């Protein structure tokens, strides 16, 4: 299933609670020491994979983990193990997700890096305290590094910026899976000289415009529903990117590129079908209440943000294909009437009834296509990080209606655990149906 770094930090919290509910068996102490080696190694990898500021404050944590970490090759340890194994796997998966290349704003990178550090440090402290308790009961002594980790009182905080790092797979349900299949089909088609066609490039550009428009509609509705901050800037940027990609679908009538692109056509139709089903009703965008009836605004923004990241990667391929048509091994065909040739050659071509000819090397007829795609990718790269910015900024609540009348207002005291669970439910991308997991824990 689609997984974000935020989902994995929530899963880590659950794994930690599971561990704390267990009691360490005295005979498992040597095993726990080995598992700490693997845990420290995975934690170091996560610290290194997260976005890092030059003045990073995790040096003490890194030093402690370095002295605990197993040498590469000492793990994976054979099952069965303790609950530490599941925690190590979750941290390892988070490191993998954080390695996914993503376009993110400096603010989102900083918030995500800090959230990873604080959650990891707080999580390791909980594991260390569990270890100390178990060792104490067995009359054994834990490593001094574990004791130091146990003393940490770091307050973990989760940031929606962590939704920037998200993995989607082709078997995921809904828009996620459709996006993943579309990205793969588009990339294969566009980068294959045998498959790429003018209409495939146009279709990929139009699909990107569709993703931009869908993201803009979600952002606008999310703000109207009070779930996101003011979205006017991000909607304007997304609409501008969408217009630029529509512009990139235009080809001069005198240019052509033949081939076959049936796989991309199917993937494009599938993507359109899923966007349509989730976001539109009777031709128009759904109203906020309908759009967010089954999934929260934050979930949909995360999904569409993954779509925009896919669109950026495909967009780069489209721009590269246009550039190659002009400056590389050009395969574009030119209307024969647009190729002035010496008289005898022209007469021979006329007699052969040639209507289309390969673009002569010095003509660079595809040059006209290059600026539109370059401008479109530039606007898309600028717009995409703004979607996550809208999640991280405080939401603008709709004006409260003063309908209290004579009634006394009673403050509801929330159970902190219940509140945390509800927040976790809101943040998790809930499966609509049984799913095939793309990441196994």
């Amino acid at each position, binding site marked *: 299933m689609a997984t974000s770094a935020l989902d994995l930090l929530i899963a880590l919290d659950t794994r930690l609670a599971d561990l704390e509910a267990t009691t360490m068996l005295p005979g498992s102490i040597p095993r726990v020491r080995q598992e700490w080696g693997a845990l420290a190694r995975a934690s170091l990898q996560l610290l290194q994979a997260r976005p890092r500021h030059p003045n990073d404050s995790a040096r003490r944590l890194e030093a402690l983990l370095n002295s605990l970490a197993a040498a590469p090759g000492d793990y994976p340890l054979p099952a069965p193990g303790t609950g530490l194994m599941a925690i190590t796997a979750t941290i390892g998966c988070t490191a993998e997700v954080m390695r996914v290349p993503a376009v993110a704003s400096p603010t989102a990178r900083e918030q995500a890096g800090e959230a990873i550090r604080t959650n990891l440090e707080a999580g390791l402290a909980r594991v260390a305290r569990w270890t100390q308790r178990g060792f104490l009961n067995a009359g054994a002594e834990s490593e001094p590094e574990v004791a130091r980790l146990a003393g940490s009182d770091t307050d973990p905080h989760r940031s929606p910026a962590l939704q920037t790092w998200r993995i989607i797979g082709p078997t995921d349900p809904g828009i996620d899976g459709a996006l993943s299949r579309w990205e793969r089909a588009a990339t294969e088609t566009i980068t294959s000289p045998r498959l790429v066609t003018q209409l495939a490039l*146009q279709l990929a550009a139009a699909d990107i415009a*569709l993703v931009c*428009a869908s993201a803009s509609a979600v952002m606008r509705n999310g703000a109207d529903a009070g779930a996101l901050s003011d979205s006017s800037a991000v909607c304007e940027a997304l609409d501008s990117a969408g217009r630029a990609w*529509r512009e990139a679908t235009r080809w001069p009538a005198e240019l052509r590129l033949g081939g076959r692109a*049936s796989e991309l056509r199917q993937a494009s139709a599938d993507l359109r079908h899923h966007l349509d089903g989730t976001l539109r009703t009777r*031709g128009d965008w759904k109203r906020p209440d309908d759009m967010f009836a089954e999934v929260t605004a934050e979930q949909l923004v995360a999904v569409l943000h993954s779509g925009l990241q896919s669109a950026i990667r495909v967009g780069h391929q489209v721009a590269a294909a246009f550039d190659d048509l002009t400056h590389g091994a050009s395969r574009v065909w030119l209307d024969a009437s647009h190729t002035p040739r010496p008289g005898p050659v022209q007469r021979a071509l006329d007699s052969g009834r040639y209507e289309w000819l390969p673009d002569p090397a010095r003509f660079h007829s595809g040059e006209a296509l290059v600026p539109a795609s370059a401008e479109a990718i530039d606007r898309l790269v600028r717009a995409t990080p703004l979607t996550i910015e809208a999640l991280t900024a405080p939401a603008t609540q709709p004006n409260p209606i003063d309908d209290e009348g004579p009634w006394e207002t009673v403050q509801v005291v929330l159970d902190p655990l219940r509140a945390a669970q509800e927040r976790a439910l809101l943040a998790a991308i809930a499966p609509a149906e049984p799913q095939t997991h793309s990441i196994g824990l």
Partner: protein
Amino acid sequence: MPQTHHLGLALSYLSLAVDQLLAAEQASPVALFAGVECLEIQSQVSELGPEGVPAVAVVPPSDALALAADLLSLDGGAELDALAQQLRRLSRAVG
């Protein structure tokens, strides 16, 4: 075997409709979704091999799609007939 001049004309009308539906000034999601679907149909028809794409008079997208549907129907084959039906639905949607 499809008549290539029918397909060429149908492609011209499809291209005309796509240009109008995907125009930058279009803000309607109906036009955008329909434009992408038309591109997909255009790609499918173009692989059937028509050589020329004759010039056609400019007409609104709904008319262009209806004309393209009629031209594809002339073939009588199941594949093109299905595409013609799809185009008639789109013509009504954007009309």
